[in-house]
């Protein structure tokens, strides 16, 4: 991973997109990894009994993927400080979750080089299901 520096970031800049297909296997791995065993995420009959068309991707997995999007952007020298998102729409099992981020503001505060971003996930049809906001710290070229 090449390091991104505070000086190189511009407001309005889009960061590299992250796409992850949320297969039933991934949802089961997430259930175990997160400890969330709610059946709407891996039991089709249970999900349909709850009025859903099929199993849905865990909201918190989408949050974690947005976290990974940011972690991979800020790389070793940066740090993800805050990741917030709202689950406005459902993502169905076996669909791509496409994670985006756009730089909203860059500023220095408390001795840190901070960047605010708008973040969101999209479905393959372009529906923004998970809008949010994030704060990351970046290293400076000046050290």
């Amino acid at each position, binding site marked *: *991973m090449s390091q991104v520096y505070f000086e190189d970031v511009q407001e309005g800049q889009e960061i590299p997109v992250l796409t*992850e297909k949320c297969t039933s296997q*991934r949802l089961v*791995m*997430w259930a*175990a*990894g*997160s*400890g*969330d065993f*709610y059946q709407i995420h891996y039991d089709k009959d249970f999900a349909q009994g*709850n*009025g859903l068309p099929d199993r849905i991707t*865990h*909201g*918190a*997995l989408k*949050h*974690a*993927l*947005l*976290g*990974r999007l*940011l*972690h*991979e952007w800020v790389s*070793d020298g940066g*740090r*993800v*400080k*805050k*990741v*917030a*998102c*709202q*689950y406005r729409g459902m993502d169905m099992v076996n669909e791509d979750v496409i994670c985006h981020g756009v730089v909203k503001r860059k500023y220095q505060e408390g001795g840190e080089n901070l960047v605010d971003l708008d973040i969101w996930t999209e479905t393959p049809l372009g529906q923004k299901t998970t809008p949010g906001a994030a704060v990351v710290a970046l290293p400076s070229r000046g050290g």
Partner: protein
Amino acid sequence: MAETSAITDEMRAAIGKEWEPFTVEVDKTAVRMFARAVGYTDLIYFDEEYAKSKGYRSLPCPVGFVGHPIHRPDRASRPAYVMPFQTPYKRVLNGGTDFEYYEPVCAGDVLTATTKVVDMVERAGSMGPMLFITSDTIYKNQQGRAVAKFRGTLIQY
């Protein structure tokens, strides 16, 4: 405000009241399982020596992870999506997640977590009346420093 509110006096009284704190252990296997589920390839989440070479005490927690509450089969455990009070709704959805980190949490840390409900709002949704419950959880490490704050929104309908 809805004509007939689903928010009872019992529910309203719960706002701002801290629940019994719970202990969270962060261990290496759990960090690896979480990072693997999210598809991370950065070795700081998998290889302790590599993580140390990057300045961490051990494997750091990926975003969204602060360890697991300790499960005890001999005690009633309450999943995070069940509130400590009765509501008229049977179905729940996750409405939102907000994690803020004050310093890295690493494998080996033992955290004390304290949760309280901070807000309840009723809205008409596409699937009928919905209740949005927002709660905050503060995680303190073994030195007593707040290391992370989680704000979750639960939707009941």
